[in-house]
């Protein structure tokens, strides 16, 4: 009996691992999610007070350590906001003059607010389940934001629920840009086992004499968003992701990598926004 159970597990593992997302085992999994999602939503609502009480204790202990850090951040961001406001106005004018493709603009997405109903406790699968699905316009690979920053991407979707793979999951990578003098762009991947850190790799190493123009601690990292012919990034440009952690110059010059702290608190995010893209033919014409 034991050998049979082990054999079934190994067969499932092997079959699932080599299958495409439209294969029978994946369909069974989607069916189970579809059937159980109302139960999960109900359980999530019933157990919300328990989570709130536990979360309150956790937040209170954490809040004191954050006050000073947040005060410094507010001062820095106020300064940056003033600069960004001017740049935005200029950008709008130039975009209109040059007739640039606006389809990757964040404003072209419709945010759908969703509640987290399940969370994977393991350190390896950093996924959450939310209570919105295709019935609400959610599609596969839609970007998901929470706490004002990128949280992840929709990787499984049913009629009433969706699974979001977080940016700290080892299967997800994002093309990201550092808002420094050079606008350095690289691939953002998680540091598996450390949910408070991401690794921005494949950066163009700065010249040794011009390190100050490269990434610096505290600078904002945003999604790069690209479009090249039929290839298009799942993530629109300029969604904040996190801030650059203290830069190790040797690592930057030799490997082209820096560490980034995610801005969203991925362990305690309860409400997220799924950026759904309007389906072709559903946009409304507007007279200017």
């Amino acid at each position, binding site marked *: 009996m034991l050998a049979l159970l082990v054999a079934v597990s190994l067969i*499932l593992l092997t079959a699932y691992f080599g299958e495409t997302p439209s294969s029978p085992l994946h369909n069974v999994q989607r069916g189970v999610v579809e059937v159980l999602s109302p139960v999960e939503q109900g359980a999530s609502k019933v*157990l919300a007070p328990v989570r709130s009480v536990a979360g309150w204790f956790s937040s209170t202990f954490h809040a004191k350590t954050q006050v000073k850090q947040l005060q410094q951040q507010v001062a820095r961001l106020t300064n940056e906001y003033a600069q960004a406001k001017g740049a935005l106005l200029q950008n709008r004018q130039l975009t209109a003059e040059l007739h640039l493709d606006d389809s990757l603009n964040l404003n072209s997405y419709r945010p759908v607010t969703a509640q987290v109903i399940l969370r994977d406790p393991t350190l390896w699968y950093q996924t959450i389940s939310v209570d919105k699905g295709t019935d609400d316009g959610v599609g596969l690979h839609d970007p998901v934001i929470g706490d004002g920053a990128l949280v992840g991407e929709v990787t499984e979707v049913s009629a009433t629920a969706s*699974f979001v793979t977080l940016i700290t999951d080892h299967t997800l990578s994002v093309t990201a840009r550092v808002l420094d003098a050079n606008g350095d762009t690289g691939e953002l991947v998680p540091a598996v086992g450390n949910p408070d850190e991401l690794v921005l790799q494949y950066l163009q190493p700065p010249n040794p004499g011009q390190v100050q123009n490269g990434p610096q601690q505290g600078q904002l990292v945003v999604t790069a968003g690209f479009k090249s012919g039929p290839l298009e990034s799942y993530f629109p440009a300029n969604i904040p992701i996190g801030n650059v952690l203290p830069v190790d110059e040797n690592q930057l010059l030799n490997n082209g990598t820096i560490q980034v702290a995610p801005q969203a608190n991925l362990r305690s995010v309860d409400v997220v926004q799924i950026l759904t893209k309007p389906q072709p033919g559903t946009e409304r014409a507007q007279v200017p």
Partner: protein
Amino acid sequence: MSNAVKLPIRLILLGFFAVVIQESAVSQVSIFGVSADLTPLVVMSIGLLCGSLTGAVFGFATGLMIDLILVQTLGVTSLLYIVIGYWAGRLHELRDPSHELVPLVVGAMAAAFAGLGMAVIQFLLGVDAPVSLLLLQQIFVVVLVDTLLALPVYALVRRIVRPVLPEDPRRRRRRAYTTGGLSPLQQGAARRTTFTRPKPL
């Protein structure tokens, strides 16, 4: 309804609710930066109470359900939980440990096996991202938190399962030895007044 029918029903309900409560509530509460994982503790408790075969089947079913509802690679969690359930059951069958702290130790080992086993399987399946050494620290903290929860979880599972468990002959023999051959219920009043422990041989 006989106990032979009641036991599987209770185990199915216990497994279902354990997974739902774990994923809907417990995993969303952060303790020392990690989430407690009660499911290996429930599997361990069933193994300790019901034996190796029941433990292994319960572990397989619970693991499969987790993999299904969390849209993970099927078979990974069930493979780990089969071992936890079977191993805890074998401990019960071979040694029948009666110390109150046994669930604490077995729970810690179950949590450590689940954490490290998952890491090994993930490495075998391939990891596309750099792995931080903090992973070991995180696994350690999860094991610590699970160890603290092992006794209450075991007590709760025992409360649910014990009334429908078949009588274990070894437990009956042990009780006869420590109570002078009578059930504690039958000689309760006598014990309160003139209880004398049998002399060691």
